[in-house]
């Protein structure tokens, strides 16, 4: 799995925690040309979501201006122990996902 996720292992209830997620992806814009001027087709991740205990807590639409290997950081309030699920959706519909646990006391 080509993702790097940073979620604190533990947090206090009500604490604001920072979550960082990066995925390996070329984010090909569709505006470049390759050998002999042949256009390189667009291939980007256009949607990222993060869910906690089955409920979506963060989502982002991504566009061609995003760099390769997109890195997203956001915060959430630690409400209880559980699993964050991260999903990246490609233009062609394929998805990659990753998960990370948090223990809230």
């Amino acid at each position, binding site marked *: 799995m*080509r993702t*790097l996720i940073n979620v604190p292992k533990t947090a206090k209830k009500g604490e604001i925690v920072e979550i960082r997620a990066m995925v*390996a992806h*070329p984010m090909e814009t569709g505006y470049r040309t390759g050998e002999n001027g042949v256009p390189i087709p667009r291939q980007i991740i256009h949607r990222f979501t993060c869910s906690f205990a089955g409920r979506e807590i963060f989502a982002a639409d991504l566009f061609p201006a995003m760099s390769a*290997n997109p890195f997203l950081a956001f915060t959430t309030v630690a409400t209880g122990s559980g699993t964050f699920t991260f999903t990246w959706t490609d233009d062609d519909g394929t998805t990659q996902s990753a998960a990370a646990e948090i223990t809230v006391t």
Partner: protein
Amino acid sequence: MAGRSLALAPLLAAVLATTVAVADTLEADRRSGYDLMSPELRAMQDDDLSNPGMFWVLDGERLWQEPAGAAGIACAGCHGDAQESMRGVAARYPAFDPALGRPQDLAGRISQCRTERQEAEPLARESDALLALSAFVAHQSRGLPIDPPGDPRLQPFRAKGAALYQTPIGQLDLACASCHDRNWGRRLGGSTIPQAHPTGYPLYRLEWQALGSLQRRLRNCMIGVRATPFDFGAPELIELELYLMSRAAGMAVETPAIRP
């Protein structure tokens, strides 16, 4: 990407023409490209979970464990735990290869194990697999001082690299030293000119949006002065690397570094 370097060319001719030998880089004044980067980029390099170069290191770790070739042996099958067997190796490359009768860089050495020991298809220079293996092996030396071998057989090659470093090349007629010894720390268009220490390779360059080798970097600089770059794997690039590594002796390995 070459386009960006070319666009800088007329500008830098003007900048450099006005500059005559400012003091050459002093030993005590050596700085890694890291020290010249913004705090944001340094933070990106320092945190393994925000450093995209780590994707290649992790890929390399997987490849290290995978049996390959007719021999069906993984790198790990012969070398075991890379944390032990590969510690410090990248810090002393390029090394003299008696069979070739000349120096070999780390990527070349890995390719050699791949074709001769694993009896597998060769990996192309700058392929993701070779970059990943090189990054994984070099990562085992992160934090260790660059330690060029004292092997006297390397000396003539290092001297050739040093001479090339001082030779003006390309339509702009600039030597590596014109920029990296006499104008480091100054700006060239949007970039700060570093001292050209090869401490972080292979590294993730934002302009490339990918990991790349030192040879790719050197070829970029050659294209930037409108010279015909040496081919990947060319002896001249390995000689330049030998010289750059001796110039950076004692500086810490940073692989995988980040650069703008």
